[in-house]
């Protein structure tokens, strides 16, 4: 495998993990614009563990994800009091606070960035990405997936049906944050260097774009979205400066034509059942 292809595949695998991190809360109807903050927590915690506690990369990355999930659990109670645009803005503020705190933390290099000694290659990252995809698919094949969809479609009805709406929302939020943290850890250990500026609102926005572009109704939406968003700019590379322009134009047009995203729930059911079903 050439270095170029490996580079793209690594990026693809990391973006897929990030995308599922944003997908879980979104499937429960919450827009998390602070994904980058949780990715930063995972990245920095795992890097600190592998640098200072002589921990191998993989368990350090898992612990980094766990740390992000724990932080998410702690903030979920006040933050999830808000909803809709308010929640999106609250998570956005949260992400910016995490970033600003890291910038002021000298133990992890502050504004100068933080070098990571351990290095992982594509096979490890791919294994993590596949594990995340399998895990989320399995999760959505259980009652959890149905409950989350019910909460997304109508909170009040879900509540009336006896679901603990708040518990499912908190779970989706914290699980998503954990996945984002794992993505951050993978990034840190492949690129050997992290800085707070990378985990900015632009990263959160791109990750959210993957998910909405792919579609939030099916577990395969984030996969398709992340793949299109990682590979499309590479294909458009021919026209170097214009590629982002074209790319944005494609997103705008697709959103007009298919506001539910590329992969919709009805499509997936039809594909899996092999026959028409009412959407």
């Amino acid at each position, binding site marked *: 495998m050439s270095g170029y292809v490996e580079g793209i595949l690594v990026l693809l695998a990391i973006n897929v993990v990030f995308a599922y991190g944003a997908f879980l809360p*979104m499937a429960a109807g919450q827009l998390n614009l602070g994904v980058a903050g949780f990715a930063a927590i995972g990245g920095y915690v795992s890097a600190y563990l592998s640098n200072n506690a002589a921990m191998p990369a993989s368990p350090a990355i898992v612990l980094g994800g766990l740390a992000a999930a724990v932080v998410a659990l702690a903030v979920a109670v006040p933050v999830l009091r808000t909803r809709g645009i*308010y929640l999106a*803005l609250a998570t*956005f503020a949260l992400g910016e606070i995490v970033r600003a705190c890291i910038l002021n933390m000298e133990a992890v290099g502050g504004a100068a960035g933080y070098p990571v000694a351990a290095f992982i290659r594509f096979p490890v990252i791919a294994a993590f990405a596949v594990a995340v995809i399998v895990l989320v698919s399995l999760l959505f094949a259980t009652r959890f997936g149905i409950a989350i969809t019910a909460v997304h479609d109508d909170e009040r009805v879900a509540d009336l049906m006896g679901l603990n709406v708040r518990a499912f929302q908190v779970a989706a939020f914290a699980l998503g944050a954990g996945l984002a943290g794992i993505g951050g850890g993978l990034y840190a250990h492949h690129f050997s260097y992290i800085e707070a500026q990378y985990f900015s609102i632009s990263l959160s926005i791109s990750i959210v774009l993957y998910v909405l572009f792919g579609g939030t109704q099916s577990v395969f939406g984030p996969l398709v979205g992340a793949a299109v968003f990682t590979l499309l700019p590479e294909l458009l590379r021919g026209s170097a*400066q214009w590629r*982002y322009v074209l790319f*944005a134009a494609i*997103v*705008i*047009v697709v959103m007009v034509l298919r506001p539910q995203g590329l992969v919709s729930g009805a499509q997936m059911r039809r594909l899996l059942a092999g026959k028409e079903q009412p959407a």
Partner: protein
Amino acid sequence: MNRGGRAIFSQQIVNGLMLGSIYAMVAVALTLGIGVLRFLNFSIPGLFMIGGMMTWALVRAGLAWPLAAAAALMVGAAASLLVELFTWRWMRKADEFVPLVSSMAFLILFENLAVVHWGSELQSLPRLFASADWRIGNLVISAPQLVGLLLSIGLIAALSLVLARTRLGRALRTIAEDADTALLLGVDIHRIVPMVFLISGAFAALGGVLFALNYREVHPFMGEALGLKGISAMVVGGMGNIWGAIAGGLFIGLAEVVSIDRLGADFVDISVYGLLLLILIMRPTGIFGAAGTRARS
């Protein structure tokens, strides 16, 4: 505090208010979209940038600055109409996050078109006003800044008058209550909604023009930092509240300048965004908004 220290401090208050008036313009643009359409329009920072960069480009092309500013304003408003054509119009019935995504894509589009045309470097404008500083005691107030502050207050007053008194304002308030009901009542929403985009685009672009004239530095990504501060200003003032936007803008401008002075530049973001988070959780209607029920999302 000695005398010199106090003079520097009051000078910073003045600077904070001037910066705040630019935040207020962006906040008004954002709050209009949320108040009337419940649409968080992420293309606003892009329109702000268009206002700033067009002013620079036209001044560089030899246009007198008032003409350049007016033209930049019109380009910004026209770009906002383009955003309307591809977002809210189609996605009124879609998932609430979808128009948000498209408006983010417009931000990327505008920024990168600017990079393609003008490059990504920081560009500076020539000094346009020879010596327009007024001195009051030890305070230095630049005339263009003061004009900018008064202009933003005046325009926001005019806007709130339009919303309260005119037929257009009544139609907008009906749409804010419920777009479908407005349609049933005979409000031509596809004629009125572009007006919202036109007005908010003009406010965003005017913010960019004022920024370019006062700070004389523009670049394709200038809208991002300003847009984030504008969002904070909008939240502080209460989303959808026009007067709250200007109060929030001035407040954030002051908070920023004072925290640089007291805590050091490193802690500015922590204090501004910490405040934002706290307000969203404790008092989602904003400091200056009426206390009451949480607005519908």
